[in-house]
């Protein structure tokens, strides 16, 4: 027999960017603790729909922690209280019977609100468009191992590439800075030979795009790496700083 809990939800409702938002209170009874957080929101939305009210708008897609679509600030923490966990992979067993849960959208000037918990993260797309790819002509497939890559570099590049672009780093940063995201995206390519030819232009243009999008400046508060569902380290920010310095002084 599954365990159930009764919870009080304080959830952010806002019809659009130009409207005033406020919290709405709902009591959910008999919430199965095996439910995920998003399934709990589905139950809430069914309850709202049945009573003739507008359901809460929230982003989600894969619901298995790899797409980066979901995310909200739960009781003051981006993606909720479990470390290295996206909101969809957070389960209701981590909450107490009778607990009040406050759910807010990710708040940042770089992420304008669309509706309720849905925010516009296209600023991240702009950063990627600015240089988060390899555009050199790779030609046809060559012999294996003709470009040696150190195991440690491959691992670090893979760690950086684990970033799903969910935006929790921006949400948690006291300055709403996007340095962990940009650091990861610059690092995953800077660490590998394929990314090297364009590394200077990439670092410069991705930082420029980041600044233009209205994100804040990093002040090394380290909140980002603590909420990152993929535990991207701020070493990637240090690497971005190095890449940027080298590019600023030596790029053509």
């Amino acid at each position, binding site marked *: 027999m599954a365990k159930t809990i009764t919870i009080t939800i304080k959830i952010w409702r806002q019809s659009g960017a130009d409207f005033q938002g406020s919290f709405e209170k709902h009591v959910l009874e008999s919430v199965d603790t095996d439910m995920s957080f998003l399934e709990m929101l589905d139950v809430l939305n069914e309850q709202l729909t049945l009573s003739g009210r507008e359901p809460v708008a929230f982003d989600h897609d894969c619901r298995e922690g790899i797409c980066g679509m979901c995310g909200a600030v739960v009781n003051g923490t981006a993606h909720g209280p479990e470390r290295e966990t996206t909101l969809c992979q957070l389960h209701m067993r981590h909450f107490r019977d009778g607990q009040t849960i*406050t759910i*807010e959208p990710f708040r940042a*000037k770089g992420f304008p609100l669309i509706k309720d918990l849905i925010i516009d993260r296209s600023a991240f797309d702009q950063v990627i468009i600015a240089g988060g790819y390899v555009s050199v002509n790779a030609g046809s497939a060559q012999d294996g191992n003709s470009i040696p890559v150190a195991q440690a570099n491959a691992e670090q590049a893979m760690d950086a590439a684990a970033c799903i672009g969910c935006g929790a780093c921006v949400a948690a940063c006291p300055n*709403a800075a996007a340095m962990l995201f940009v650091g990861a995206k610059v690092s995953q390519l800077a660490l590998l030979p394929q990314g090297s030819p364009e590394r200077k232009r990439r670092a410069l243009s991705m*930082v420029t795009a980041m600044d233009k999008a209205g994100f804040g*400046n990093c002040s090394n508060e380290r909140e980002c790496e*603590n909420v990152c569902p993929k535990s991207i380290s701020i070493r990637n920010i*240090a690497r971005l700083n190095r890449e940027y310095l080298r590019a*600023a002084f030596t790029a053509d």
Partner: protein
Amino acid sequence: MSWFRQACTSSVGKKYIMAVTGFLLGGFLLVHAAGNSSIFWGRQAFNSYAEHLHSLGILINIAEVGLLTIFLVHIYTGLTLFLQNRTARESRYAVQKPAGGRTWGSTTMPYTGLAILAFILLHLLNFHFTGQDKPIADIVGPILNNPLYSIIYAAAMLILGLHISHGFWSVFQSIGINHPKYDGFLRAISWAGCFSIAGIFLTIVLLLLFSGNQLR
């Protein structure tokens, strides 16, 4: 030179400016603390340290202008970052909970910085722009024997300690020095720098408060 201006005004560039000026100011503090520790050896040692410093002539003026420039750049860039970061989040979270990265030092950086600026102005009025032509020991001794000044100076040193508790480590991260092999070492020298600077200055304040004869 437009590339240079562009780099300096970018978010990463501004962090470099904060880090480099912060590092230089930290170096100044270490030298300042080392020089002031001549107070531990009494009046003669302290006066002779000051005389040696003044005998450098034009060099001391050059150093003063350099230091002032570094200070102004650090303050201007710091305030720019502070104001920009405030506008980067227009609506505040109803529930605010630190995720485990912030420290007292990192959270209060702009405020401790401004408090230190206010203290430096007082400090310069007390000991630099005195208008008196007396040996340094006769200027410093009476002021730091006054409990009111002792409290202000001691509080300022604790605030300075808080500021550099984040600042020293932050210097390394901002200029990109972060490597698993040196994590422990960097943290250790950051704390050592923080404690030695704040510790030496605090000891001097307490010594001059409780031992009025130290500089006589």
